[in-house]
């Protein structure tokens, strides 16, 4: 019975990740992360996603703070968006990475209005990604629980 439930969950996870690839939410870098998870480190994907979300939320808060000032410190903005772009690239968050590129461009152009638009897009993409990651982590945890009980 457990065996069948496990197989069903693995298929569900595979299809869910594939749908994220199809939508452009994730790219092939995420497969690299998944490949690094094995029996010696069964929670690796969960660990990386959790780290990513904690950092992303901190950075988005900072970006909002700096864009809220009358006079924008574009170099500070650039530093934070570089961090978020790097994290997005490392985890394979494709659409979020592209949104970061847009903010970087607007920052280079010294356009506050462009930066605000790009940050709104980053926030939207991040919220979508977080919600999908939550589903993914739930599936991962259910699979690990069944595998542990085997």
């Amino acid at each position, binding site marked *: 019975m457990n065996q069948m439930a496990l197989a069903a969950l693995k298929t569900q996870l595979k299809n869910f990740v594939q749908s994220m690839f199809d939508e452009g939410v994730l790219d092939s870098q995420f497969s*690299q992360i998944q490949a*690094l998870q094995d029996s010696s*480190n069964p929670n690796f994907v969960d660990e*990386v996603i959790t*780290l990513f979300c904690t950092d992303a939320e901190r950075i988005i808060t900072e970006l909002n703070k700096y864009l809220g000032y009358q006079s924008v410190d574009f170099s500070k903005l650039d530093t934070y968006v570089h*961090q978020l772009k*790097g*994290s997005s*690239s*490392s985890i394979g968050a494709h659409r979020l990475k592209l949104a970061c590129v847009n903010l970087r461009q607007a920052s280079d152009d010294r356009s506050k209005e462009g930066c605000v638009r790009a940050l709104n897009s980053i926030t939207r993409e991040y919220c979508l990604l977080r919600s999908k990651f939550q589903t993914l982590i739930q599936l991962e945890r259910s699979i690990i629980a069944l595998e542990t009980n085997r």
Partner: protein
Amino acid sequence: MAQSRHAVEKEQSTKITALVVDDNRINRTIHRRLLSNLGIENEVVGSGKEAVDAHCSGKKFDLILMDMEMPIMNGIEATRKLREMGNRSMIAGVSSRSMEEDIQEFIEAGLDDYQEKPLTMSKLISLIRKISLNG
């Protein structure tokens, strides 16, 4: 039965030691795991200054994976400083900076190799091969 490519690389890379220098903890986590999967003993630090401190404390590494943009001391300064102090590790720049002049400056600071982020298993294996060939 033929050994898998990954297993062969793992055998070759045993005994190689590496230092990950990156201020981003997601990158540190991923790079560490990539190295561990190849059986490479590794340590991590969060800035160029800490990499220089590790060298000063007498630690030696075969490979240093050096990020470019970091607080306190960036990868370019750290690489220059390490070379000035006689560090002979293979230093590989790992960065997502796409400006050609930045990359050039990084290389001229003393890099042996440059890899664009994200670092993947195949990129890491190509670095390990270079160490094995030079060793």
